[in-house]
């Protein structure tokens, strides 16, 4: 078997319990959103809820909370989901630094492996873990709608759900790749997770500020969250190609930088 795939298998095997729990949580969260949406739909509360929203929020969110369909789709941009998945990606992306800290690298990298294999491994694990998370969300939504959706409710279409899932996966993957760059420099996993966590939080806030405050709009483009526009998609827009391109480019550039740095450094 290819040595990178041996490493991927090893990493996935070690984190299988954690990933299974995360997938279950993501699945359950979508069910929870559908159950709450059903309750609101049956009690005719969506109209009331829409009235309570400030106008700028209503405008920005395309009134997602004011319909069964919108509320269900909100499960793909809910801050809790976003923070959880970004934290998961940062944790996985910090693996190379963790191996240096634990000295496991002395066993691994003294085998006939290219240095880049460790970075490629983590990138593949990131893709698999994130794809698994959004797939479990998608399955959760699909099953939840089949079981709990009220007969009269307008349910979200598969294309929109898939678009949101892909955009969410790409923004989370970009954060994983950013963590990979930090891990290629660092010797301690906590340094990577703390730095990237703080950066993610800062850029998350910056993105929000940029959406409502024109002077910050320009600088908010540095935030990967800027390229995740769930409410436009919920409102009917297709998956923005430009956003996809920026997020994919971020991941690719970060992976290349991480490989170059890790290949040249002392372990």
């Amino acid at each position, binding site marked *: *078997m290819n*040595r990178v795939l*041996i*490493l991927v298998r*090893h990493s996935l*095997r*070690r984190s299988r319990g954690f990933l299974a729990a995360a997938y279950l949580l993501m699945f359950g969260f979508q069910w929870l959103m559908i159950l709450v949406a059903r309750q609101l739909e049956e009690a005719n509360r969506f109209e009331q809820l829409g009235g309570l929203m400030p106008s700028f929020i209503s405008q920005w969110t395309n009134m997602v909370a004011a319909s069964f369909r919108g509320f269900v789709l909100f499960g793909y941009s809910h801050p809790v989901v976003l923070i959880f998945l970004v934290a998961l990606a940062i944790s996985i992306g910090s693996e190379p630094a963790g*191996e240096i800290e*634990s*000295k*496991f*690298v*002395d*066993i*691994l*990298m*003294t*085998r*006939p*492996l*290219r240095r880049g294999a460790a970075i490629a491994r983590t990138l593949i694990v990131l893709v698999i873990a994130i794809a698994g998370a959004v797939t479990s969300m998608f399955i959760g939504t699909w099953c939840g709608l089949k079981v709990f959706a009220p007969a009269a409710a307008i349910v979200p279409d598969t294309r929109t759900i898939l678009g949101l899932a892909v955009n969410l996966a790409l923004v989370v993957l970009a954060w994983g790749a950013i963590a990979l760059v930090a891990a290629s420099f660092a010797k301690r996993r906590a340094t990577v997770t703390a730095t990237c966590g703080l950066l993610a939080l800062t850029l998350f806030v910056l993105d929000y500020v940029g959406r409502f405050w024109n002077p910050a709009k320009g600088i908010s483009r540095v935030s990967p969250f800027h390229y995740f526009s769930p409410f436009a998609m919920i409102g009917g827009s297709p998956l923005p190609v430009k956003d996809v391109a920026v997020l994919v480019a971020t991941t690719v550039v970060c992976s290349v930088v991480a490989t170059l740095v890790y290949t*040249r450094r*002392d*372990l």
Partner: protein
Amino acid sequence: MAPSSVPAISLLHLSKRYGAIQAVRDVSLTVERGEAFGFLGLNGAGKTTTIRILLDLLRPSGGSAQLFGLDCQKDSIRTRSMVGYLPGELGLYPDMTGQDLLDLTAKLSGGAVSGDYRQKLLDRLELAPVDVHRSLREYSTGMKRKLGLVQALQADPPLLILDEPTEGLDPLVQQTLHQILLELRERGRTVFMSSHVLSEVERLCDRIAVIRKGEIVLLSTVNEARHLGGRIVRIKFRQTVEPITLPQGTAFIDRQATQWTLRADSEVGALIPLLAQLPVKDLEIGEPALEDVLRNFYRPEPVDV
């Protein structure tokens, strides 16, 4: 692999600097194929840094390191495929089992690992099958060391680099490991080991190098090193004796009322007529332990032994 005339390890003016700290300075040495070589020095002397450069975990600031004629940095995949390595500090994930670690390192190794050979190693180092299937968090220090040794030896590589191989092992397993290493050397494998246990080095190694503050301060065969200390002469007297002027090349190491310990760098013949005039009860002439000789090389400023 390169022709058999090419040494297993060749270091040429190797240096490694961390900012202002010079960890390794102008280290040059060769280790021939089939040789057992002891790399000695105090903690922080530069042993592990040198070893990590050989394994391409660290990049040298100057000079070159070669294994079997191949550059350790430019041809690192090929050089690492010929090495079995036991780190001084084993970083193991506690959630893995011993079997997981052995399987992972076997799959990542260049050559195929024989299941029979691995099992023999496990048996000889007293790691029972039930232990191998336990999670590493349940392992004692000694068990981890044994597992580390098996992962280093299992691919039967032409070169073994062992950092403190017997640390944490009980005396019986230490003896077994010595036997295994002697057998490997007989089969033409090269062993490069760092150790604090000089009796072990004395027993296993053909040659030694002592590194101090990043520099090689002694490079010789074990026998030559032992002779650097001269001979030790112990004399017991029947009664208290006054000190005498010793012949050239002889010096007091310890002087008590009825017992002297001398070091003789040259022949002891000149000492005999002097001793004949004294009430000698017993006389013992012996070779110094390697430990006594090397202790002087470990010190910041070497003193005459």
